[in-house]
């Protein structure tokens, strides 16, 4: 099948899109670019008749992954490619970017922060990776040729009424 591609912006150093993705989106990070890329992704996934629960999980996870690349991988603008393959029981995602290495501890120990008794001690961050870990399977990270390759799956679930 011919990949369904969308290209945003005019970035020159765009990593190659994942070859096996049925949906491929490339964009350059910026203040509202992650939001735009998500809107394109959700629009394309809407054609696959996924449940509202699955769509919700996808939006949460992909937003966190892309924001992490934009905020921590790149200091300023940088190029990202996102590939999605819709399978019968799950969706398989790949992101590629040329930003800073992803710290390994986030993949292995990114637990949900504890909620302390004193409200003033409640953390305001650290929830992004914990949500990614909670909502995905098979999270896998590789650094290849100066690029970050992250793959993960989100199971397709029926919505609970």
């Amino acid at each position, binding site marked *: 099948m011919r990949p369904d591609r969308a290209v945003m912006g005019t970035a020159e150093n765009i990593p190659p899109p994942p070859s096996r993705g049925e949906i491929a989106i490339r964009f350059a990070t910026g*203040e*509202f670019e*992650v*939001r735009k890329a998500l809107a394109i992704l959700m629009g394309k996934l809407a054609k696959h008749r996924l449940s*509202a*629960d699955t769509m*919700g*999980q996808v*939006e*949460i996870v992909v*937003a*966190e992954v892309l*924001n992490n690349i*934009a*905020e921590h991988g790149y200091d300023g603008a940088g190029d990202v490619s996102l590939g999605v393959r819709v399978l019968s029981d799950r969706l398989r995602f790949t992101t590629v970017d040329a930003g800073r290495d992803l710290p390994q501890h986030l993949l292995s120990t990114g637990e*949900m*922060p504890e*909620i302390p008794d004193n*409200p*003033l001690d*409640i*953390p*305001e*961050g650290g*929830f*992004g990776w*914990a*949500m990614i870990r*909670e*909502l995905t399977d098979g999270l896998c990270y590789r650094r290849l040729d100066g690029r970050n390759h992250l793959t993960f799956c989100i199971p397709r679930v029926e919505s609970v009424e």
Partner: protein
Amino acid sequence: MQISTQDHRGCRVVTVGDSRIDAAVAISFKDCMRELTDGGTEHTVLDLSAVDFIDSSGLGAIVATMKQLGDGRQLALAGLSPNVEKVFRLTRMDTVFAIHRSVEAAVQAHAA
């Protein structure tokens, strides 16, 4: 960001007009909330019924707002869509905030 307020008997209702509280607007949301709740009522109800998506940055901004209110002033939430509710549940923040189905229910619970 589009945010409006209305006071009901000692309870300030802050209604978010935007459909997303995400990384793109988290800082301006936090600043807006500081201005709108500064020196205000004892209880604040954040009306999220128009919001259909929140990410960890948006969640952090709501937590920061709760902290800014300080001792003795409470922040309650109302009108969470299923996906917004999911983020609060996953992060266990649903145990930190009083969450109400509607603004009316929140005002009833918190107004003087």
